[in-house]
């Protein structure tokens, strides 16, 4: 499973993670690329030119986003009863979609990554306001936040656009 992170500017696919610990080796269609290694790497910026003669800015950063993507990828190896409590194995097709959802969310606030007992990828935000985004199908999500926070279910995000209410909530989390 390749996974991409959208950029802040375009929300377009910008880079691919080939495997854990490897640098991203394919770049598509954007001018700014968030380029991440594992944790504990120093943050640097580099101006590079690709083989297509496009100019890209690369940022090497410590990356909770990459850790999240790696955790999502690890779910592919988990079978039935992956938690010894009877939870269902994740569906590979939904895991692929979950990488996109995670990327879209991470633009605003990086969530914790987990699976529900039904094997659905779930992204949790815990703090003064807590909430979760659950991927229920290919590019279909439910989301719920506590208190007066927004909620909805069966939301189609196949256009790679998160609901405005969800974006506003995520923005508050990081304000």
């Amino acid at each position: 499973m390749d996974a991409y992170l959208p950029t802040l500017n375009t929300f377009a696919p910008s880079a691919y993670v080939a495997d854990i610990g490897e640098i991203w080796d394919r770049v598509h269609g954007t001018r700014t690329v968030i380029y991440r290694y594992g944790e504990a790497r120093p943050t640097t910026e580099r101006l590079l030119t690709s083989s297509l003669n496009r100019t890209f800015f690369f940022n090497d950063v410590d990356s909770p986003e990459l850790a999240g993507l790696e955790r999502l990828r690890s779910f592919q190896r988990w079978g039935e009863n992956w938690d010894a409590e009877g939870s269902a194995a994740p569906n590979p097709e939904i895991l692929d979609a979950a990488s996109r959802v995670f990327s879209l969310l991470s633009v605003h606030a990086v969530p914790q990554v987990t699976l529900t007992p039904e094997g659905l990828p779930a992204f949790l935000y815990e703090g003064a306001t807590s909430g979760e985004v659950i991927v229920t199908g290919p590019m279909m999500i439910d989301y719920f936040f506590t208190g007066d926070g927004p909620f909805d279910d069966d939301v189609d995000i196949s256009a790679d656009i998160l609901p405005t209410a969800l974006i506003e909530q995520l923005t508050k989390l990081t304000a």
Partner: protein
Amino acid sequence: MSAGGCRQAWNNAQPHQRAPAIDAAFPDCKCEAHSLCAVGGDGVGDNELLARILTSPTDYDETTSTILTQRLMHLYSLGMSVIRQGANDDEIIGTIDELTNADEPRKLVGAVIIPTSMIRAFADPKRWFAAYATDDREKIHHVDLCGTTPDGSNSQVKKISSARRYALRDAMSAHVILAGDAPALLACLRAAGI
């Protein structure tokens, strides 16, 4: 409503639908009065202690010393497994071994020890959670904590259920004991009265 009826509703439900199924069949936690175990027995008393084993990274964040709500999602599907007071050493050590040798790499952190009455105190006025005496293979001192289904639309039910899960997490946070290996945790559980 009989013990047999409750057991049948529990056993016939799809595993991931157990909590909503038993709530739909016998609302208001009526089946708490009975044991749902194959071997029978009594329901869980208010004063009985329950222990939930905590592992890292999914149950407990060691950096912030907080219980995470991820595993509490079981409340609304399979039921959330806890150890019932009176469990023997094999049941406790077996549970710890299973949890720390699953596909998901996890490390033992400790446990939450709570009285059943705490679970039953969550209500508005309808109860939020039920504590059913169940078995898990050879483990007979076992309880499944199950969320009841709130009223409302599908999305409202999910939102309310989520908020209740966080409320339970907050209440459990005052009852954490830390022990990083099985013998130490077993000793702590015994000292606490499990």
